[in-house]
């Protein structure tokens, strides 16, 4: 079965400091990978997605970047955090087309709570 890990679980960082959040997936190959941010009481905002190693697409212009150095590893980074970067960050994986039928969805990790002070 597939599992998805995120770390750290919680992070408190000062404004202007760098950020690195990591996500790894087990039990599948060549997954699509996604980074979302969820503000308190809000829906999920897609930040980045990746369909393969080194392939990153950005959905929202911002202070963040993403990288995929290995097939099942997805990293979210920032050089200098802003107060507005605070939130709950979720990594998700999904099977890639054409293997994915229309019924396939995305599966989420446990999330990282980031507080920028």
């Amino acid at each position: 079965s597939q599992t998805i890990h995120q770390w750290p679980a919680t992070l408190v960082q000062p404004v202007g400091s760098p950020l690195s959040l990591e996500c790894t997936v087990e039990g599948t190959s060549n997954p699509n990978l996604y980074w979302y941010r969820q503000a308190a009481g809000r829906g999920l905002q897609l930040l980045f997605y990746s369909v393969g190693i080194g392939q990153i697409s950005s959905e929202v212009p911002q202070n963040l970047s993403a990288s995929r150095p290995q097939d099942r590893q997805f990293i979210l980074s920032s050089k200098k955090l802003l107060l507005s970067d605070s939130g709950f960050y979720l990594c998700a994986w999904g099977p890639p087309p054409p293997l994915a039928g229309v019924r396939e969805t995305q599966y989420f990790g446990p999330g990282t709570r980031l507080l920028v002070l």
Partner: protein
Amino acid sequence: EDQVTQSPEALRLQEGESSSLNCSYTVSGLRGLFWYRQDPGKGPEFLFTLYSAGEEKEKERLKATLTKKESFLHITAPKPEDSATYLCAVRPPGYSSASKIIFGSGTRLSIRP
């Protein structure tokens, strides 16, 4: 622009009081509608996939149904452990290697003992 709207934003029920959550979408020709459950401080947990109007899926006290414009998540005789935020998401039509899905803002369900 494709949109997914969930209502109500919050719902408080007494234990055993059945009700329904609504998810309406403007996407035409969607390629899948998904329901998730999210507990506070945790990632969303996948519950159901619906694809065709008239389709129904059940899991314990939850039943999801789909029409051409909306989906309902019916909860029958809920228990306090059913308290969570329920998220709806849709996959728009058209091929995309990214297989992106669009989320609603969720319904916060609270069940009082």
